Structures are given as structure tokens and as C-alpha cells.
């Protein structure tokens, strides 16, 4: 768990971001007085516990998993919204593990190279600001040398790029629908021409037809600017549409990482299999979904050993005792499962 592992990279593309053994623990204890009176112990939520992966320039890596698996926390660790409890983050050769604590120009040099798109289009725009001010904010901060006129022109360009009109800069967010607001968020993220975008469930608050518009826009932008995406979602179909590689997370760890096609064709980890089988699909009209037992346990009290063992049909004594590590397979995927490692499972 503590050793640094490098994900074998495919032939093409340099590594843009490398995460090794990321961990983020939150103290979720009751206040001190309650602890003393109720004799409760300190509680730690291990939202992310030993996650390693790398993202190559120009690719889309997706993190999928159910609620509480830590996928959003990973996103926030990368952009420095939370501090790392343990682990190392290297962005384009520079160590950015301490980004959350950095301030000033030194941090700005790194921060202007990546951006984030959020889930809730109703909360991600300051309701009191005009759209032009919102989109111009990164420019005002990162490029103080830009004149107001230049900035205004750039904001207009950005709005048109995401399918809105330059005149929309004078409006307020409440005048726009959810899908349009998400376009504004994307325009803000693009403002300073970042290389890397962290997208935290960017379409899960949108209707399907609007989702299609936004996903198409994101792919167009990726091609046009050679963007690298870390794409977080709980929706397997969306992930399949967007991702080159997929990491399946369960309770703060990665269960399996594989190329998108490979994962959907032959998932190895029992949880990945289960997740795929559970997706309701249009193809399966009237089909009974394969039934998965149980629910995700409370991450404050994760099961010992492999966190998935209580729900796993193949669990044995070792699974209950020992935490499995990600192990690379010949087909390029990596799986953290004793059963797969021992050859008990395909």
C-alpha cells in the first residue's frame, strides 16, 4: 500500500498526471465534549485510501463507483480543494502534492493549467454576478495584463465556443436553463486555456437530451484543444461513451483499472462485473437485471480485508483478512482481487 506504483503506460502519450497512493482521511468524530461524555472514540472517514493511477496527455480517464466510493474526493484532491493525508501527485513532472496549502503566484502557475467542472449547474455560478464577470474571473486573476476590452472579447469568444451568444455575457445565471448553465461553467473552465479538466459528474443533474448536448460539446472541445479529462460519474453508459480508460472505485480504493473497451467486454473484479450487470439498459427490455445483494457499507466502518467481501459471492478467508493490491494483468488491466490473482476467478 505504501510503495509507489507506476501504472504501465501504453505506447503513446506522455503521462500528464500521476497519482501515487493518494489518501484523504476526514475526522468525523463528535465534538470533544460529546466524545468524553459518551465515551465515543475518534472516528476517521477514509474517503480515499491508497489510490494510484496516471493520466496521459489527451486521454480521458473515468472514475466510476457508487456513492461513498471516494471518486469526488479524488477529484478534489487533484485540484487542491482538499489536502492529501498521504501520497504524491505529480503534474507534468512537478510535484503538486502540497497544492492545497500553496498560495500566490507559485500556486497560480500550476493552477492555471487545470480547471474543474462541477455537478450542480444551479450552485456552480455566483447568482449575483453577470455571466461575463463569471467567465472573466479566471482571466482577471491569471492575466492581469489583459485589458477590459480584450477580456470582453475573449469572454464573447468563449460563449460562442460553448454554443451560447456573446450577448449572453450581460445576463445573470438565473436566466439560463440547467444545460446552458453547464455551458457557462465549461466556458469559465476554458477561459484560461487549461490542459487538464477535472469533470465531477458534469451531466448527472441534467436531462438526457441536454446531457447528450453537453457530452458532445465536451468531446468537441477535447479534440479541438487536446484536453485531458478526468471524468467522474456514476453512470456506466456515460462513462463508456466518454472514457478511454476506466477506474472502478469501491470504498476509497480502486478495484479495477482497464481500457474502456476491455472493461466492458471482460470485467475481472467481481464488483466491476456487478456494476456492469446492474446498469439498466434499453437493450434489456423486460430483462431481469442480475441481482446484487446488499448495499455499500458505511465508509466510516469499512469491512476488514477486501472491502467488497461481504457482498462478493467468491469471498474466502483470505478476502476477509487481507486487503488486495492492484496487480497488473497481461491484458493491460489492473485488478485488486485475491480471487483474480489466485486464478480462482477468470
Amino acid at each position, binding site marked *: 500500500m505504501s510503495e509507489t506504483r507506476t501504472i504501465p503506460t501504453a505506447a503513446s502519450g506522455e503521462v500528464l498526471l500521476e497519482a501515487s497512493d493518494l489518501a484523504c482521511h476526514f475526522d468525523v468524530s463528535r465534538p470533544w465534549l460529546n466524545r468524553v461524555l459518551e465515551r465515543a472514540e475518534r472516528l476517521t472517514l477514509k474517503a480515499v485510501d491508497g489510490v494510484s493511477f496516471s493520466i496521459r496527455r489527451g486521454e480521458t480517464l473515468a472514475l466510476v463507483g457508487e456513492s461513498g466510493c471516494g471518486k469526488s474526493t479524488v477529484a478534489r484532491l487533484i485540484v487542491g480543494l482538499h489536502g492529501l493525508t498521504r501520497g504524491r501527485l505529480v503534474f507534468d513532472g512537478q510535484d503538486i502534492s502540497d497544492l492545497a496549502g500553496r498560495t500566490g503566484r507559485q500556486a497560480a502557475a500550476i493552477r492555471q493549467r487545470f480547471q474543474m467542472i462541477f455537478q450542480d449547474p444551479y450552485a456552480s455560478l455566483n447568482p449575483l454576478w453577470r455571466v461575463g464577470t463569471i467567465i472573466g474571473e479566471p482571466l482577471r486573476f491569471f492575466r492581469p495584463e489583459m485589458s477590459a476590452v480584450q477580456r470582453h472579447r475573449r469572454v464573447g469568444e468563449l460563449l460562442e465556443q460553448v454554443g451560447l451568444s456573446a450577448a449572453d455575457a450581460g445576463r445573470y445565471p438565473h436566466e439560463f436553463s440547467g444545460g446552458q448553465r453547464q455551458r457557462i461553467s465549461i466556458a469559465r473552465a476554458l477561459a484560461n486555456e487549461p490542459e487538464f479538466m477535472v469533470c465531477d459528474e458534469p451531466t448527472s443533474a441534467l436531462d*438526457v437530451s441536454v446531457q*447528450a448536448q453537453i457530452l458532445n460539446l465536451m468531446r468537441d472541445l477535447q479534440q479541438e484543444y487536446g484536453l485531458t479529462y478526468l471524468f467522474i460519474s456514476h453512470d456506466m453508459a456515460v462513462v463508456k*461513451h466518454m472514457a478511454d480508460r476506466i477506474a472502478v472505485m469501491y470504498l476509497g480504493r480502486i478495484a479495477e483499472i482497464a481500457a474502456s473497451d476491455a472493461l466492458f467486454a471482460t470485467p475481472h473484479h467481481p464488483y466491476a462485473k456487478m456494476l456492469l450487470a446492474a446498469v439498466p439498459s434499453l437493450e434489456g427490455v423486460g430483462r431481469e437485471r442480475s441481482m446484487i445483494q446488499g448495499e455499500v457499507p458505511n465508509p466510516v466502518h469499512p469491512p476488514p480485508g477486501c472491502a467488497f467481501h461481504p457482498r462478493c459471492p467468491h469471498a474466502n478467508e483470505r478476502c476477509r483478512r487481507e486487503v488486495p493490491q492492484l496487480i497488473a494483468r497481461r491484458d493491460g488491466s489492473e485488478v485488486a482481487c485475491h480471487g483474480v490473482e489466485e486464478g480462482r476467478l477468470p
Partner: protein
Amino acid sequence: MSSTPSSDRQADPGTGVTTPEPVLSVRHLRVEFPTRHATLVALDDVSFDIAPGEVLGVVGESGAGKSMTGNAVIRLLEPPGRIAGGEIRLAGRRIDDLAEDDFVPLRGRHIGMIFQDPLTSLNPLFSIGDQLVETLRTHLPLSVAEARERALALLREVGIPAPETRLDSYPHQFSGGMRQRVVIALALAAEPELIIADEPTTALDVSVQAQILALLKRVCAERGAAVMLVTHDMGVIAETADRVAVMYAGRLIEIGPVNAVIRRPRHPYTEGLMASIPALAERHARLYQIEGAMPRLAAIPPGCAFHPRCPHAAERCAHRRPELMPAGASLAACWLHDPEDPLPRRAQEVAR
């Protein structure tokens, strides 16, 4: 209400089901929201039936009126919304004109409700056993002991492990999936003929979602209860519903057997909607996208509400509102399916 003066409908929206008497029959339902600028028509001429034991999926995007249809049936419209026309019949009996006092006993006893967030349906201050017993005794002549026995049986039926030990637990002690099971038990307690489930699995993880849907389907089938399943998720509809009603801008635009609607949608909006859903089986470079967005209630275009976004739109679409017309196994409100003079399709093909 409808653009044609004649009230004779060209087709009966209940087509596809040949049961004697529908559990729920909604005809020409119209819901209005008077605001200071104008009266918004939130539901406009909505008609459908649900047969005993049938699951009718109601889909649409936010603002299409799918939840409002359910809320109108159980009279939980948010003020100032009101039913402004049409009729609703429950097992043949008209319920939309009942006085409030006569309507209240229907909820729970004849119409069960399941909402998206189980926490809003459960009282956090009472144990689930107490809530079940209370519900049972409100509607059925049972002693406390009998009701408790029934409650246990119900919990067992909805798959709560070791229900004897959970009867005295409080809602917050259950996980999300288990809570939704309790809500289902509550909704079923008085054996209602109709269950209205409004986004019952939206707040749940996929793995739990499958369990809950299977459970809902099984228990309703066993009791012969009809289900109106309101959801935005076509996948949920595909595997749970028998028939589907698609809504757009407060109108019912297509209704038919689930297979027909999903595999061969007849209304251009439904076609576009299906094609815009990312598929698991195949992968396309781009998703099909319907340009534009659903109109605001205050600005619903005349004629067919979809015509400004429709690839096949013609002259008459902008002026005359299409009724539901037979289209294959379904009914679709689109001039493409006009029996006398069908509109030609434009070449542009929506391919999955």
C-alpha cells in the same frame, strides 16, 4: 383544450390493453397554474388508463409534467396549481370532483405513494413498526397485535432481513435502500389498487436500484396492484414498465407498449430522446442531440409543442395540435401518423 372542436377522439388512449375496467382512468386532464402574468397550462389534455396489475411508466424531462400528473391524481398539486378540466376515475369512480374530506381516505387505502426521498415519507420520530401499525390500523380493522403481525409479514416480504429485530428501529438506522423498502411496505400496507411511484430509485445507487425495482414489480404483481411509475430514466422504464407514456411540455405525446416505444419510437421527440441516451452495447463518436430545449410553460408554441425542434416539421405542425393517433403498436401525437394525410418524413434519419 384541444385544437379540434370535436371532442370525439380518433383513438382511445387505452389501446393495447384489453381489460374490462382500468384501475385508473384519466381523461383530458388539464392542470393550470394561475400566475400574475398569465395562466400557465402545466398539463394539457392528458389521457391514459392503467389496467389492474399493469406498470405504466411515465417519462419525460424535468418540467414535462410527469410528476405533476401523479400529483394531480393524488391531489398533491402545489398551490396555486389546480385541476382545470378533465376527469380522473379510480376503479370507475370519479375522484377528481370529490370534496377534500372524502378524498383524504383514498390516499394510502386505495392509492399508495412512493417518493424519491424515503426520508420525506417516513416520520423520523417514530419507529418503523409504529408507522406501519398506525397506517394499517388507519385503513383496516385490525387490533394492535394483528397489525404488528401484518407489519412483520410486510417487512419480510419487502426483504428486510430479520424484521423482528428491525420493527422497533427508527428510519435513520436504515440504509437508503432499506428505507425505500420500508416505504414500499408502507405504501402496500392497506393493499391499495394503485401505487404511484415518483422517481422511486433516483436517489439510490445502481446496484440497490435494481433490487428495489425488482421488489416493486414483484410485490405489485402479486397483489394485482397497478403502478404508475414516474421517472426520467429510460433504463428503469425499459426493465420495469409494461407500457410507457412519454410527456413533453405538459402533453402526452406518445403512449404504447414498452417494447414498441423503446425499439420503434413513433414520435420524433421520443426518437430523439432514445437516440440521445448513451448506449452500453455500442459506442458512437457523437451522441444524437435534439437541438434546443423544452419550451417554458409560459411560451409553449402553438400547434405541436415540439415543432420548432422537430426535423420533420411542416406547415400544419405550427398551427394544428395533433391528437394521439395510432402509430404501429403505439399512439403518437404527431402528424406523421395522420391516418388521412400522413406528413412525409424528412430524409434526416435518427440512427442509434
